[in-house]
C-alpha cells in the first residue's frame, strides 16, 4: 500500500520572539490522500498559513518547527537538507499564496517568473520552458497567453494575478498543492471557475490539495475532509459533510452559525462572542474556554483530541453529542 501523500503528525511551529514564544501551530495532525482535498478552516490568526509554510519548509526566523513530523509520501521532510527541500518545492509540493497582489515580483515579466520555475527543476530548453508556461496560462483560463507572457504583474488584475500564481503552481503537476485562501481576493464568478479547475486537477493528476480558507461554503463544495483550527490547534476534524451537518466542537458550531446562508432569514446572525486569545500567553486548558457556551470547570484541563464517532475527532471535553439545530 502506498503511503498517503501527506501526513502531518503533532506538528509544532513556534515563533521565538522577544516578547515570548508564540505557539502559532501547536500539535497539529492530519492526513491528505492522493487526489483528495482537505479544507483547513479557522479564524484569522489561528495558524493556517503557518501550517502551510511549515509543510514547505518556509518558516522564517524567529519561527521554526519545534517538533512533530511532516511525512510526504512517507518521507519525513524535517530530516531533508535545504537543497533537497528546494528540489521538492515548486516541483512536487507547490503553494499558492494568500495575497495575489504581493506574490509576483513587480519588476520581472510574467514569462521570466514562469520560465525560471520550469528551469529550476528540469533541464529543458528555454523555448520548451516557455511553451510550458504558455500552456499553463491557457489551462487556468488566461486569454491570449502568448501576449500576456510578456506583461508585467501590474498590468494584471488581482484575479488574473492569482491565476498566474496558480498556473505557476501547476507547472510541474505537483503531488501536493497548499492553497492559502487563493480565492478570497477574487469575485464570486472567478472563484467558482477556479474551484472547478482545482477539482479537475485533483481528479486528473491525483494531486492532493490543502485548501486554506475561512469560508465554510467553499469548503462544503470542494473538500473531502475538513480540519478546524483554533489558536494553533486542530479542534475538530472529519469528513466534510458530517462535520458541517453534525459538528461536535462548540467552536465549529459557532463558526457554522456565523455563516449567513446557513441562518434562517430574519434571524440575527449569530456571532461567536469574545475575541481570539493572544497566542503569547494562552491560558492552560481549553483555549476556547472564555468564549465557550458549554465551558465547565473541567475545561481548565487541556482537553485531549478524542474520537467521538468513527472518523470524527474533536478536542473538547463536553462536545455536542447530538445534532444541533444550526
Amino acid at each position: 500500500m502506498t503511503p498517503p501523500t501527506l501526513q502531518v503528525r503533532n506538528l509544532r511551529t513556534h515563533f521565538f520572539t522577544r516578547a515570548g514564544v508564540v505557539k502559532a501551530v501547536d500539535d497539529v495532525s492530519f492526513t491528505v490522500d492522493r487526489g483528495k482535498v482537505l479544507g483547513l478552516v479557522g479564524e484569522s490568526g489561528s495558524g493556517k498559513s503557518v501550517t502551510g509554510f511549515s509543510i514547505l519548509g518556509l518558516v522564517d526566523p524567529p519561527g521554526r518547527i519545534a517538533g512533530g513530523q511532516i511525512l510526504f509520501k512517507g518521507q519525513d521532510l524535517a530530516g531533508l537538507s535545504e537543497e533537497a527541500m528546494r528540489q521538492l518545492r515548486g516541483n512536487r509540493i507547490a503553494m499558492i499564496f494568500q495575497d495575489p497582489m504581493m506574490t509576483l515580483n513587480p519588476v520581472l515579466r510574467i514569462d521570466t517568473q514562469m520560465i525560471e520555475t520550469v528551469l529550476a527543476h528540469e533541464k529543458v530548453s528555454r523555448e520548451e520552458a516557455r511553451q510550458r508556461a504558455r500552456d499553463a496560462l491557457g489551462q487556468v483560463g488566461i486569454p491570449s497567453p502568448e501576449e500576456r507572457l510578456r506583461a508585467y504583474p501590474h498590468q494584471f488584475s488581482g484575479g488574473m494575478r492569482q491565476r498566474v500564481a496558480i498556473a505557476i503552481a501547476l507547472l510541474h503537476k505537483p503531488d501536493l498543492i497548499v492553497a492559502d485562501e487563493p480565492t478570497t481576493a477574487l469575485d464570486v464568478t472567478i472563484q467558482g471557475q477556479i474551484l472547478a479547475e482545482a477539482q479537475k486537477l485533483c481528479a486528473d493528476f491525483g494531486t492532493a490539495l490543502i485548501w486554506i480558507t475561512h469560508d465554510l461554503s467553499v469548503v462544503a463544495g470542494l473538500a473531502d475532509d475538513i480540519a478546524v483550527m483554533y489558536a494553533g490547534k486542530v479542534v475538530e476534524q472529519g469528513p466534510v459533510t458530517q462535520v458541517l451537518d453534525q459538528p461536535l466542537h462548540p467552536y465549529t458550531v459557532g463558526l457554522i452559525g456565523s455563516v449567513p446562508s446557513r441562518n434562517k432569514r430574519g434571524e440575527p446572525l449569530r456571532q461567536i462572542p469574545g475575541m481570539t486569545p493572544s497566542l503569547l500567553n494562552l491560558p492552560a486548558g481549553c483555549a476556547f474556554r472564555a468564549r465557550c457556551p458549554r465551558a465547565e470547570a473541567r475545561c481548565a484541563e487541556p482537553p485531549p483530541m478524542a474520537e467521538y464517532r468513527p472518523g470524527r475527532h474533536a478536542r473538547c471535553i463536553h462536545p455536542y453529542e447530538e445534532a444541533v439545530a444550526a
Partner: protein
Amino acid sequence: MTVFLLRRLIQAAAVVLAMSLLVFLGVYAIGDPVEILISPEADQIERERAIQALGLDLPLWQQYLVFLGNALRGDLGRSFVFNEPALQLILQRMPATLELAVGATVAALIIGLPLGLYAGLRPNSTLSKGIMAGSILGFSLPTFWVGLMLIMVFAVQLGWLPSTGRGETVEVLGMRWSFLTANGLAHMVMPAINLSLFKISLVIRLTRAGVRETMLMDYVKFARAKGLSPTRITMVHVFKNILIPVVTVVGLEFGGTIAFSVVTESVFAWPGMGKLIIDSINVLDRPVMVAYLMIIVLMFITINLIVDITYSLLDPRVRLEGKA
C-alpha cells in the same frame, strides 16, 4: 514616453530660468555689478564701454533680459585672470571633473553594492556589523583630511601612487581624458576613491536597507516556494528591486559629487572645474564664478532628467504610467 519627456523638459527649463534669475539677482541687485563683472584693473574708458556693453545703465528688468540673451548665446563674461571667455574656461576643465565623478560613482557601486548586499543578507554577522560601523566612519570622515592622509600614506610613505595632477591624457572627441592612459589612471585612483568615500557609505546603507525590506516581501517567499536557488533569488528577485532606489539616489548624488569635487580637486591639485572655481574665488574672478554657477545648475537639471528616464526604464510601473 514623449509626453513624459516633454513635460520634464518644460519643468527643467522653468528651473533653469528661476536659477538664472537668482544668480542674476545675486550679482546685479545685491552686489555691485561693475565691481563684480568688470576687472578692477580696467581704466575709466574701459569701464564706460563695459557698462554700455552690459547694459548696466538700463533698468533692472532690461538688464536681466540682456543677461539672459548673452547667456543664451553662451556669453557669460570674460575671466579677469585668464582674459578668456568664462564659459570656455569652464568647459575646458569639465572632462577632468566628469571623469573623476564618474570614477567615484563607479567605485562606489563596485564597492558598496556587494558590501551592502552581504550586510543585508546576514545582518547579524560580525562582518556585517563591521561594514555598518565602517559606513558610519565613511559618513563622518572629513573628505579633505582623508585625501591628505591618502597622499601621506600612498604617495609620500609608500610611493605607490602619484600625489597630484592628472598625469598623461589622450584626446578623444576633442577632449582630454586621463582614464585612457595607465599613467592617468594611476593619478585618478586616489582622488576617485577619496571622492567616493561618502558615496560608498551611502550605497552600503541603501543596499542593506533595501535588501532587508525586500527579503520580507511575499514575492521573495513565493520565489522560494517555487524552488528557486538562493543565488537566483538574491541576484534576480532581490537585486533587481533594490537597484531602482540605489540607482536613483546614486544618480541624483552625481550632481553632489561634482559639487564636492571642489574639495577633492583642491587636495589632489586635479585640474578640473572645482579647482578652477576655488582659484577663481580666491582671486575674486567673478565672471568665472557666475558662469560656473550657471553651468552647475544646467548639469543638475540634466542629471535629474537622466535619472528620471533611467528610473522609468528600470521600473515597469513608472514606464507604463508615462505611456498612458
